[in-house]
């Protein structure tokens, strides 16, 4: 019985290690770089798969209403890139939407229309943790909640029977 239990655990661990390379959740990551006055926007699913040919809309600093006419619309290329030329300084918003339920927005701050060729990239909008880390966090939360819930129900059962 004990040997069977150990075999089961080993099998589980082996299965986890085997499927680990395919654990690529489709978190949408976006980033933007300023190059010679052009904004080069990039969108990827986690695991570096490009968000190809997805709809993109660009809103300028004065377009407070998200439903207002966009400054520019278009689609990403095969590599998930989209390029536009801002015409004023301020905070720009670039939204990418693959039209099957995944959407991401990247803010790009333009301080000058004649940026140097190697401007710092805008912060990528993602949680920054690896998929494995997030899986471990998620599983820890699930088992933690299970433990707390069992303790709570046991205590309540004890109180009722007492």
């Amino acid at each position, binding site marked *: 019985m004990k040997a069977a239990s150990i075999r089961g655990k080993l099998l589980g661990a082996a299965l986890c290690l085997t499927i680990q390379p*395919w*654990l690529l959740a489709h978190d949408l990551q976006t980033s933007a770089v300023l190059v010679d006055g052009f904004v080069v926007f990039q969108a990827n699913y986690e695991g570096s798969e490009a968000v190809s040919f997805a709809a993109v809309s660009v809103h300028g600093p004065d377009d407070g209403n998200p439903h207002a006419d966009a400054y520019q619309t278009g689609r990403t290329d095969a590599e998930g890139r989209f390029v536009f030329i801002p015409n004023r300084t301020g905070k720009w918003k670039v939204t990418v939407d693959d039209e099957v*339920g995944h*959407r991401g927005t990247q803010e790009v701050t333009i301080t000058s229309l004649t940026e140097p060729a190697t401007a710092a990239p805008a912060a990528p909008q993602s949680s920054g943790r690896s998929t494995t880390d997030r*899986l471990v966090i998620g599983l820890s939360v699930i088992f933690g909640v299970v433990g707390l819930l069992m303790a709570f*129900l*046991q205590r309540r059962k004890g109180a009722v029977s007492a």
Partner: protein
Amino acid sequence: MHIADGILPVSLCVAGYAMSLTAAAIGSRKLQTEEVPRMGMLAAATFVASCVHIPIAGSSVHFGLLGLLGAMLGLRSVPVVVAVLLLQSFLFQHGGFLTLGVNALNMGAGALSGYLLWRMNRLPLGLRGFLAGFAGMMVPALLVMLEFQTAGYGRSLLVLTGVYALLGILEGGFTSMVLTFLQRTRPNMLGLATPPQSFVGVASQPEGPSA
């Protein structure tokens, strides 16, 4: 299938929250201590399975194990679905917070349809398992398509639904294997699916001894 924020109208999102939270509250009633570990294990399995994504048709699809969840937990699957989606939304940005209710409603409907199909013991055991897994994949996909249509959003959704149908066949086969195995070897593991009064008549107890 996890809908991001900003796609659906707010009224639909609010209705989704109201319906899914009500269903989760009903599914959590009279919860017993011994039911919790199984719910936790299945929550963990669903959480991991939904992270195995398959890039296809310019997007990505993934397994959900919702049919298995529904067949093994019955109404208890709804609170599990809500908890798993909350974690996925926080940790993986799968779906938005505003659309969490609608997403939970879609996935919960998948799990419950799997549960209902699994309990139709007039059908052969393997077929019931297959249909439970297939419905667990297809019902959410069709609901998402319906919601996108309502919101006037999306492209090539029919193509994606076709992809999900193929994935549903795979998931149906897997669910059928697991449920048939459990029914024959550990039928007490399928003992949580207690039918509510409203379902009596359309569904009946599965074969084998219950817990």
